[in-house]
């Protein structure tokens, strides 16, 4: 895991005498990412979905609250590009709204859980000893807790949380259960960073410990956090879909992809578009993130083979 820390240390380690040889780290990461075609495609799909979820409302004149009495349960037509539900609501409007909710949940949960785990993990590593042991115990206890029960109880409204919109409630609950793994990773990574010579050097200079953590530790686990951010988004979206599917996540009138899929499962044969369209969107969303994640790993991991090849094309043909 520690080799995520310094992606460019390996690249052209030795010969950097002249200025033009030096390439900025961000440029190298960008280039490596761009070399992975799948990842670029993933990024493209994700951005497209994101834009549709924001501005998709302009693609159709209908919104998710308006019933079209003339088209109830109709398959896709020029009037309704993706058809309508059996209540006569435009599916495209629903999808746009559902995708937005899903992406929103993903981004918030992914981002915040990374932040929480970074702070929690670094604190554990930094203080060590009893603090570390206690915090680790809490962490383990949380891992043991059955998430599904908590979600069911919280979203059923019995916890006195009725005033919150259901998506926000789900965000809070998902957040509560998503940061532990990363926190443990951050802890072990920071602990190995504490052993580095530059941390020792700072210690021998008499630099206070807190400053060492903030100036030396946190920036150096940055690339791990970036990777975990995208992974966190995927995880949150999938969790939302799963919870909504079994009916304990997002509650109507809010819509999400999970809700749409869950509603349509009963009538796959009679209203197939209602099932397949949200399912495809969900696959595109999580799939694009997974593709991107692969590219990000390539970009940040110094030991990846994403360096291109020196063989000319003709040479390639002969070897294959």
């Amino acid at each position, binding site marked *: 895991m520690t080799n995520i820390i310094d992606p460019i240390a390996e690249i052209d380690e*030795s010969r950097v005498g002249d200025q033009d040889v030096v390439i900025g780290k961000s440029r190298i990461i960008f280039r490596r990412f761009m070399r992975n075609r799948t990842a670029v495609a993933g990024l493209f799909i994700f951005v497209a979905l994101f834009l549709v979820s924001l501005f998709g409302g302009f693609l159709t004149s209908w919104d998710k609250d308006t019933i079209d009495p003339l088209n109830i349960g109709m398959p896709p037509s020029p009037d309704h590009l993706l058809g309508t539900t059996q209540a006569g609501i435009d599916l495209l409007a629903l999808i746009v709204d559902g995708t937005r909710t899903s992406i929103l949940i993903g981004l918030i949960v992914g981002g915040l859980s990374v932040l929480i785990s970074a702070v929690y993990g670094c604190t554990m590593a930094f203080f060590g000893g009893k603090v570390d042991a206690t915090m680790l115990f809490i962490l383990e206890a949380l891992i043991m807790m059955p998430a599904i029960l908590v979600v069911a109880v919280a979203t059923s409204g019995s916890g006195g949380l009725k005033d919150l919109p259901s998506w926000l409630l789900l965000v809070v609950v998902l957040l509560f259960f998503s940061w532990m793994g990363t926190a443990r990773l951050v802890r072990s990574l920071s602990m190995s960073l504490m052993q580095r010579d530059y941390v020792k050097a700072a210690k*021998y200079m008499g630099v206070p410990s807190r400053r060492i953590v903030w100036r030396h530790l946190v920036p150096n686990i940055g690339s791990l956090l970036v990777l975990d951010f995208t992974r966190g988004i995927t995880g949150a979206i999938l969790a939302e879909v799963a919870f909504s599917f079994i009916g304990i996540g997002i509650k109507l009138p809010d819509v999400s992809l999970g809700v749409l899929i869950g509603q349509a499962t009963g009538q796959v044969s009679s209203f197939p578009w209602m099932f397949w369209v949200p399912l495809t969107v969900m696959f595109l969303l999580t799939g694009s993130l997974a593709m991107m994640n692969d590219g990000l790993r390539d970009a940040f991991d110094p030991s990846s*083979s994403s360096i291109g090849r020196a063989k000319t094309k003709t040479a390639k043909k002969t070897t294959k």
Partner: protein
Amino acid sequence: MSTNITPAERLRDAGLYAPGDAVLSVRDLNVRFNSENGVVHAVRGVDFDLMPGKTLGIVGESGSGKSVTSMAIMGLLPETADITGSVRFKGKELLGLGDKAMCKHRGNDIAMVFQDPLSSLTPVYTVGTQIIEALTVHNPNMSKQAKEARAVDLLRMVGIPSPKDRLKAFPHEFSGGMRQRVMIAIAIANDPRVLIADEPTTALDVTIQAQVLEVLHTAQEETGAAVVMITHDLGVVAGMADDIMVMYAGKPVETGTVEDIYYNPRMPYTLGLLGAVPRVDTATRQSLVPIEGTPPNLALPVIGCSFAARCPLVSDACLHGEPDLFPVPGAAVPGVEGQRLGHKAACIKSNELSGNADAHKIFHAPPKPVSKFDGVARVEREKVLELKDVKKHFPLLKGALIKRRIGTVKAVDGLSFDIREGECVSIVGESGCGKTTTLLEIMEFHPDQVGEVIIGGVSNKVATDHKTKMAMRKEMQMVFQDPTGALDPRFTVYEVLAEPLENLGMPKAAIKKRIMELMKLVGLQPDHVNRFPNQFSGGQRQRIGIARALAVNPKLVVLDEPVSALDVSVQAGVINLLDKLRAELGLSYLMVAHDLSVVRHISDRVAVMYLGKIVETGDVDDVFDNPRHPYTRALLSAIPVPDPNLERTRERIILQGDLPSPLDAPKGCNFATRCPVFAALPAAKQEKCLTLEPPLASEKEGAQDFACFFPDGELDADMLVVHA
């Protein structure tokens, strides 16, 4: 000069005059890799012939393409690399063979010994299984008993005691040197004709290095294999190789017999390399030859001589066309007995560099700096650091629930010494002798330590409040071994250097001024302060590390293997810098190093440590020229010297075994288990060594202190080796 013939024609011509009896002939080998900076031309035209039973040494700095060459021969390079040229084993072309076809040759005809013995054995299989595996792959019909017998033979051949029992041992039960022996055993298992050893001893201690080189020597004698020895250490190959090829920037720049290269170098780079290595056997009061600059970037086409940018003899003619290897005038014709490679150099000025060229003059080596303390007697100087009976014992615990103390590791066991103003004290010894723990005890001083650490007159016993601690820290700074790991990759040089100053609460303007001073002091361009550490070469990074240590004006700098991670040519520059700083700023150094040649060059005093104790200490020249303790004698004799004639006739003490485990440390003299004097003593005298602990004392006034009862004792004949 480069000519107009195509590579294909060149290859054909080259193939024609390859001697028929060579086991391995390499012609016009070129390797290209892709990198973020474009295609890197890592190896640019290597030619050599390897005769049966001979040893070829390939010498060069990191990045010179020596390892890539060996990997290309073995067919171990990644598929993405572009390899052209010809590699022939007994006339059969190896390049272009598929992985499967190559497997028939690998390990059977051509075998390899890798650098890192710790990671080249699989930890989950026994040593025996791994040797037998190598046999099974190439001899599927061999019976199980035969294979086992052969494995035992092999282990015996590489000098592993009780080989039959050791077959069932796992790699972790072996020390580094033993594992490298096992690697050699695996490599020679199928009687290969060619053995490629890629820096086989770099990761090992000097005493173990001597053992392993000895084993390689025996292995070659037993199997009659030709050896390609790749190394950056000119000393290691001096005694072993018949021919030498010096590589620079992916190209051989000088080839010839050992004598040609060491006594009559005709290429400025070779000359510089030889001058850059400090010698352990002579007390030179002269600075080392620094080779300024860095090798060319091989992602760009090389215009003119690749060494031109660093060469002090460069002239306009050097910048037009890269010189090919040309026979040196006066050298014997290739093919004549004893002149296998023929002395060739890729330099248009090789004529001018006749045998008596002085590297110091050519490379403008600076004069040896003189410190203001040099004239002052040692006793009159102030003590900057004093250790009084410092001990660090680690309890060895066993048991799952209730921990039982089963023993004590005495990492540092009663250490006392002092360092005066302006002097450099070095601690030497094998890894595991407690050098690093000593440094840690000094750097992490606290009131509860066993023993007293006095820094600048303040004892650790009174360092209870933050203010005293800070004052002590300010007196003493550290330079680390690995220049890359010691600098935060996310800090610019400015931030790195500003950190200690900010910590002292210096105002911003003063910090800026001080940083500019520091950059100049360590020989870096002041306008590079905004760069990141990865934009510097290893030597420059170490200079940044030194600048950081000097930022707060300490009196004492603790150097933990300051040059061991650097290339030979760069190392000389850093050593000269350290020498200069000591003289100019009146610094004192406490250095830990395993390279005794560096120690001899830079130190005034030396302390030899063995199992947590100092066994000999005194002025560096006294200790090195007239070592009294048998361990010091063995250490010194194990250091290879870059002088082939001397190296071949030198008497070498090969210590048996490794550092004993601290658990069964002997009661009396702790060196007794490996001592060559002890082994030769009559039983009556041995008793004394085993029961009494020899005190650290000097024989006469002014000489070094040592801890041995029989400093003049005869050495055990079995432990002495001379290669005639």
